[in-house]
Structure formats: structure tokens, C-alpha cells
């Protein structure tokens, strides 16, 4: 017995620490990404997480992977209004893009923040009827355990070939933390490597100016290149709510109609927009803030000119704002071979 232990000890493979490449701008402007002490990134862990992320084996009928609704080319989101899971079952919300998740320091995930930590988040889709449709995690654990490759890969990543849901979600979370988008035109402008056109610069002013668009209080600014505050707000989509958002999770009526501010990076690839995918284009979104605001008791005080239906942007301001927003696109991120299915 003790001899056997010794032998397996000697055989234990030590996973190699993964060196997370933090973009220069993030190093300058932001605090270090949040990597939980009990789930440090390793080369083997990230690789395993990536394999799992793209593997349809995680769904009940081998038809859906995480990447089905989180497609790398769409900045890890999905171009349908509401995502479709196994058996053609449709979800209730629009998929969310996945990047810079290790900089969500509150660690509240989903549109309504109902899961704390990426590891906890990954537990959910696997057993959601309208996502990956498994009736239990045990089934998935067994399926992976009986797979020709996975036990070995878990052994390399976690020093054990016994596959548990905890380890599955740890591996996936490791991969997700490597999804970093920090090389947009605007990032290079911030680093002094590129210039913006007068139109884009004026669009930035619309974004930053309290007398024009005032988007920056919720969606970041040049010194916060996440382009989100990762907080929850009611941005005036509806007068009454069919989806209570944060309020359904906290039970506090003051939170009704609040959803997490999405990052404005990579909007070029993530249409349609909002938690229910109601807006097909960026123009629709801008028109919403300009003229389409709906009042309700929980509407955020940062939404301006509610009684006029919004910030009333002139046509030229709208075009400039859009031009600025598109400088936040990071084509290198959506085309990064490192993030594509092997």
C-alpha cells in the first residue's frame, strides 16, 4: 500500500505554470487579473479547458458545446437573438461574449450576476435543459471518465485521473481566463502607436461628455480599457419588465430590470445586443439611448433626459459615436488561432 503510494507519487506529473500575457495597456492602467489561489493556470489545465470548451461530448446528445453559443469568431458570443441548446430548445437570454473575465473583480457572472466565480458559472450550462441538457453532472463525469483521452489529460493537469465536476469547471475557467482582448485600434491609440480620425475622436467626446452621450459612467473610459464597470444598471429598455434581471436574483425590487453592463469591446462581432438580443444593430442601440429610453422606477439616475426619451444626439453625433465604438474592435482576438478549436 505505502509502496504503491510512493510509486504513484513518483509518477505524478507536475503541470507547468501558464504565463498569462497581460496586455501592456492593462498592466499600466488596471490592477492585476484575478486568478484564484486554488486554481492557478497551468499549460495543461488551460489546454484541457480549451478541449472541454469545444467538446460536444459535454452535452446530452453530443450536439452542443460551450463554443456553440460562445463562438470565437463572434468574440465568444452567438449571433442568434436567443441561443439554442440541445433538442432545439431556446433559452431566455442572449449569449454573452467572453473576454477579460479575470478582470471582473466582483466575479458576478451572467446578465443578472447570479453566479459567483467562473468555476461556479461553468457548473450551470451543462445541466440546463435548454443548453447542454444533461440530467445530472454524474452522467457527464462518467462520460469523461470512460473517454480514451480525458483521464490522462486530467492527470496531467490536476495530478489525478478521477474526473469530477469541480475539476472540469476548474479547467474550463482556466481557459476562459486566457481569453484576453487588448489589441484594438483604441488600445494602440492609448499606447501612442496609432492615431484616431477626427470623427472617432469626436465620438469619444460624445461618449465621455456629460452634456452629450455620457456613456462612460457605466461603460469604462480610456483609463479603464475594460470598457465596462461590471456593475448592474437599468438602462431604460422597458417600462415594465418581463425579465426582472438582478431583482429576480436578489429579491430586492430596487434591483428589478437591472443587468450587467456589457463591455463595449468587440461590438462589431457581437450583434444582436442587450440581454434579450432585441437590437440587431449598433444604430438601434444608439437610437435607444438617444430617443428610445423607457422610464421605470428603477431606471438608473445616470440615464439622462429620460423625460425626453434620451440624450437626443444629432445625426452626426450618432455617426461619430458609432465610429468611436468601432475603434474598440480587436480583430486579433476573434482570429486568434490559440482560441480556435484544434
Amino acid at each position, binding site marked *: 500500500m505505502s509502496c504503491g503510494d510512493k510509486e504513484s507519487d513518483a509518477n505524478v506529473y507536475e503541470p507547468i505554470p501558464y504565463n498569462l500575457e497581460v496586455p501592456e495597456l492593462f498592466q499600466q492602467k488596471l490592477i492585476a487579473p484575478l486568478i484564484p489561489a486554488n486554481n492557478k493556470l497551468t499549460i495543461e489545465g488551460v489546454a484541457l479547458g480549451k478541449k472541454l470548451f469545444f467538446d460536444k461530448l459535454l452535452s446530452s446528445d453530443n450536439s452542443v458545446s460551450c463554443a456553440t453559443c460562445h463562438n470565437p469568431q463572434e468574440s465568444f458570443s452567438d449571433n442568434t437573438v436567443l441561443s439554442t441548446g440541445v433538442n432545439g430548445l431556446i433559452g431566455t437570454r442572449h449569449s454573452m461574449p467572453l473576454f477579460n473575465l479575470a478582470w471582473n473583480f466582483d466575479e458576478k457572472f451572467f446578465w443578472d450576476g447570479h453566479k459567483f466565480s467562473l468555476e461556479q458559472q461553468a457548473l450551470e450550462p451543462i445541466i440546463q435543459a435548454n443548453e447542454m441538457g444533461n440530467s445530472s453532472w454524474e452522467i457527464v463525469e462518467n462520460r469523461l471518465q470512460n473517454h480514451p483521452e480525458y483521464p490522462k489529460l486530467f492527470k496531467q493537469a490536476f495530478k489525478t485521473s478521477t474526473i469530477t465536476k469541480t475539476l472540469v469547471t476548474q479547467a474550463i475557467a482556466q481557459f476562459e481566463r486566457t481569453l484576453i482582448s487588448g489589441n484594438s485600434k483604441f488600445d494602440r491609440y492609448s499606447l501612442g502607436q496609432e492615431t484616431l480620425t477626427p470623427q472617432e475622436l469626436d465620438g469619444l467626446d460624445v461618449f*465621455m461628455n*456629460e452634456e452629450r452621450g*455620457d456613456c462612460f459612467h457605466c461603460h469604462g473610459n480610456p483609463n*479603464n480599457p475594460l470598457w465596462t464597470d461590471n456593475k448592474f444598471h437599468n438602462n431604460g429598455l422597458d417600462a415594465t419588465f418581463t425579465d426582472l434581471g438582478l431583482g429576480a436574483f436578489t429579491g430586492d425590487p430596487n434591483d428589478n430590470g437591472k443587468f450587467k453592463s456589457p463591455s463595449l469591446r468587440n461590438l462589431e462581432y457581437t450583434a444582436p445586443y442587450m440581454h434579450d438580443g432585441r437590437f440587431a444593430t449598433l444604430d438601434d442601440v444608439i437610437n435607444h439611448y438617444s430617443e428610445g429610453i423607457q422610464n421605470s*422606477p428603477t431606471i438608473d*439616475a*445616470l440615464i*439622462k433626459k429620460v423625460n425626453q426619451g434620451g440624450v437626443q444626439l444629432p445625426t452626426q453625433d450618432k455617426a461619430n459615436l458609432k465610429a468611436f465604438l468601432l475603434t474598440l474592435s480587436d480583430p486579433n482576438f476573434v482570429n486568434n488561432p490559440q482560441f480556435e478549436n484544434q
Partner: protein
Amino acid sequence: MRKILALIIATSLFISCGEDQDDNISSNANISFKLSHSFNDTAVTAENFTDLDLTNANGEVLNIERFRYLISRIELINSSGLAYKLKDYKFTDLAEIDSYNFNGDISIPSGNYTLKLIWGFNEEDNIDGAYQDLNTASWNWPTPLGGGYHFLQFDGKYNINTTPTAFNYHNGTARISDGVFEQNFVTIELANPIFVTNNTSIELKLDIAELFKNPNTWDLNVLDTPLMPNYSAQKMMQENIESVFNIGEISN
């Protein structure tokens, strides 16, 4: 200059005290701070702040949605005028109860002190984009308004019983005209004596109602939003902020 000298003396004092700390623990005290908030006599806490109906000096009934602020250079000054800087800066979010408490970075000798702090950042410290934690909190003040950081973000609605209307009482650098800015921080010195022995906890109280009354009675119907680019509104805020702080309970 005198201040720099005082700081040098203070630092060397601290070091010499630090050396015999093991033998004589009572000569050095750790200071902890506890921030508390009120609206006149109503306690305002992380749990209740979004539920309160509050009436300001001008008579408007209002709700608070968000209240975040920055103070810096928190110092205790001893009876001979030596300043001990206990904290470079402190960002507080009323919604985050964890942000109410903080500790001084150095321990100081026992004795009598008074508290001094700066509302926001002074010009020297208010460097655009320089603080990673504040950037991460999206605390920045727009470059066309002078850059640096917000000092206060106070959002809510007033006239809540008739026509609820948003206000954004945001304070930071004041813009006189394009490219011309005026500092807008406030140096606050509280006269209350603070006796420090062993480990001392100091309650610093902030009365939100003062923002609306002293010396300028604030009429939200006129000044609700946008206020960031409004020079005179920024200067009225600066005046009203002078009286928001008080020393509360001190426990040793």
C-alpha cells in the same frame, strides 16, 4: 517646505519608535478608521441607503442610488504640529460595507492629535490614470474637464413623490473654459482632539445632507444634471463639502 520637514521628522520619529516596539509596545499605536454616513440624523448604511426617502435643505424629497467618494492624505497632527500621514488615499463606496473600514499604514506614538484630510486629490496627486485601483473602479474624471479622478459620485432621484427626476452630483476638477481648469479639492482639518493610546479606532462621520445646505442651499430643480462641466456648480460643491465631516466615536 515646512510640511516636508515635518514629515521627515515624523518619519524618523516613527522609525526610532519602531525599533523599540518589541520592548515597549504601548509607545506605538495602530490606528484604524471607521467611516459612517448619515443624512442629518438618519443613519445611511449599505443595507438601507436605497430605501430611504430623505428631505434636503431646499425641501426636495430624494433617494440615493449611488454614493462613492475619495479622500486622501489622511493625517494625524500631534500637539507640536508634526504630521503623520496614515493613508495616501481612500476610495469608499456606500454600497460596499467592506470599504467603510481601513487601517493607517504606519503606527504612531501615543498622544493627542487632530485629524486632517483632503477631499479628493490635490493637484499634485490628481494625476490622470495614475492609480490602477481607481481606474479599475471607473473613477476617472474626463480629460476635457481636467482629467484625474472624480472626488464624489452621488446619483439619485429627487421629487420622488411627484415627478422623480435624476440628479448626478459629481464633483472633481472645475473647468473654467476649454483647457483652463481650477483645482477643486478641499483641505479639511477637524479640531476635535483625538487621544491615541495603544490601538485606536477613529470614526469619521460624513453627513450627506451638508452637501445640500451649507453655505449654499442647493436647489436640485435648477442644478440636477449635468454638473460636471458646470464651473459654478463645482465651486458651490467645494464650499458645501467643507462641513460634511465630523469625528465620531474614538475607542482605544
